[in-house]
């Protein structure tokens, strides 16, 4: 918007004190290159016509209606805060967490700092075959000396140092041709030092043929799994592979039916799964239970079956069936002047490039509407002039981008001593104290 419209002023409102969302709280600590995009964001935020207001919860501190009065256009890009629920018995036992909470925990998201995940068991089960599932498996099994040099929180590093987990099963309802993770992440997992992949060759019979004419990405991904499954343990050239203390594996066509409790009924001790067969093929294949069951012993269950968008404000229409804000090219249906971008617009899937391009699409809609007069800018709107007074009267103190830069500098300085890119501050109160608020 700033680049293509010389007069636009863009204000960003964020619930947390700090900006960047999933780039800070979702991307794994051992993927620092993915976070390089923060530099582009920072440049944008420092623009004179851009202002950042952290610590403001839209829907509570200020309503969408109030924002619409104060601004010519409002764009919602608040993502997907919730996790899809399994909906099975035992889901609330101790030892069962959503991958989102677990990721939030090791990435320093304030609301997940008290998670205290139970890492005292040998076997963990991750439900799901996406990149987030691989992330949590990798963080559980990574050698400590590698994690130590990342921006993983100190607290979670200490917990992982005491972890007894040595085996992680990634369980999915469908087959190898339906895995949602991507090849770079799979390759990383296969090459994870000190671990050995356990893939059952029987799961891959006939697949070489099935992907012969598939699009290149699916073909290469499947071929990598096949190659890994057919390798003999001694073949791996990695150090210490034969005597690898830790292992991970993929289990297919298993649908979780219940988390089984320990004798005292309090903690997870295993998971019961229905074996499935596939109807249809490719992306639309459906997993149908065969009637046979299987039990897998484990003390830690991480559910990685997808994120969920939560409704924000009664003034914003929400399509409960599709779980998104109903829109057309980012224009919210039935609400002129209201737009949406990112996961709230398309659903919670895709990598940074997908969401980035999607945002450009919404920005294009806003620019078009400005150009043809659908957005009437003939009379000025007050912008933060109006919102700021409302917030003040409600006792809300926004945090500015330069405030964030102070926090950023403090985190980097603290990290230096420990050889980490930063030591994240996980307590919002501590952040506010640092700023002298």
């Amino acid at each position, binding site marked *: 918007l700033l*680049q293509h419209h010389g007069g636009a002023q863009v204000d960003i409102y964020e619930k947390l004190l700090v900006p960047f969302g999933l780039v800070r709280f979702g991307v794994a600590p051992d*993927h620092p*290159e*993915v976070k*390089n*995009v923060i*530099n*582009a964001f920072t440049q944008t935020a420092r623009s004179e016509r851009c202002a950042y207001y952290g610590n403001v919860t839209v829907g509570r501190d200020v309503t969408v209606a109030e924002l619409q009065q104060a601004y010519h256009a409002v764009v919602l890009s608040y993502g997907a805060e919730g996790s899809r629920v399994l909906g099975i018995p035992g889901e609330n036992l101790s030892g069962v967490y959503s991958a989102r909470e677990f990721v939030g925990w090791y990435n320093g998201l304030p609301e997940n700092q008290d998670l205290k995940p139970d890492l005292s068991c040998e076997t963990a089960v991750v439900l799901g075959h996406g990149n987030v599932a691989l992330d949590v498996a990798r963080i559980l099994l990574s050698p400590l000396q590698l994690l130590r040099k990342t921006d993983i929180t100190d607290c979670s590093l200490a917990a992982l140092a005491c972890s007894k987990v040595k085996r992680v099963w990634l369980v999915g309802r469908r087959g190898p041709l339906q895995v949602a993770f*991507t*090849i*770079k992440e799979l*390759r990383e997992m296969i090459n994870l030092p000190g671990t050995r992949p356990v893939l059952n060759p029987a799961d891959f019979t006939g697949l070489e043929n099935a992907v012969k004419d598939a699009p*290149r*990405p699916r073909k*290469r*991904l499947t071929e990598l799994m096949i190659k890994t499954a057919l390798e003999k343990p001694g073949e791996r050239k990695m150090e210490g592979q034969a005597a690898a203390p830790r292992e991970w594996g993929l289990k297919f066509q298993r649908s979780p039916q219940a988390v089984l409790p320990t004798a005292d009924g309090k903690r997870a001790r295993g998971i019961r799964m229905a074996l499935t067969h596939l109807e249809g093929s490719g992306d639309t294949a459906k997993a149908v239970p065969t009637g046979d069951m299987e039990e897998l012993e484990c003390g830690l269950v991480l559910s990685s079956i997808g994120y969920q968008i939560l409704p924000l404000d009664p003034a914003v229409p929400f399509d409960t069936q599709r779980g998104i804000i109903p829109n057309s*090219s980012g224009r919210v249906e039935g609400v002129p002047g209201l737009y949406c971008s990112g996961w709230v617009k398309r659903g919670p899937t895709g*990598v*940074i*490039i*997908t969401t*980035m*391009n*999607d945002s*450009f*699409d919404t920005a*294009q809609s806003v620019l078009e509407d400005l150009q043809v007069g659908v957005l009437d800018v003939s009379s000025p709107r007050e912008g933060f002039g109006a919102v700021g007074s409302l917030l003040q009267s409600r006792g809300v103190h926004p945090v500015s981008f330069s405030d964030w830069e102070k926090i950023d500098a403090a985190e980097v300085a603290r990290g230096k001593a420990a050889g980490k890119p930063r030591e994240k501050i996980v307590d919002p109160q501590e952040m506010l104290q640092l700023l002298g608020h």
Partner: protein
Amino acid sequence: FANLSYSSADQVTVHFINRDGERLTATAKEGESLLQVVVNQNLAIDGFGACEGTLACSTCHLIFEKDTFQNLGAISDEELDMLDLAYGLTETSRLGCQVCVKKSMDGVTVRVPMDVSDIRKQLEVGKQSKQ
């Protein structure tokens, strides 16, 4: 007169066809990656090079002419892995951050691929013009 220190033999001209069809011409130094060219010359290509050349995204995806493509250096598994996620992948696609400018590339033209939203808009415009 800082440019006097570079011989003109080091300068290579590269043309970029942007998503909207506009032709952007840049002067590159031999050995620079095409991502560096875009960044150093401040070319107006939205969202190009988000991960800053670390093979962690596919936003510097470029499409080459067949003969230019065939003369480029070998492609690594890591580059293929990221290209696999690129929208509009072609047989002559590469990531700009992995392709370094050579003298033999003087005058070459590369195309910035359209993304999903571009295709959607094209379809919408197509539909409207048929009404």
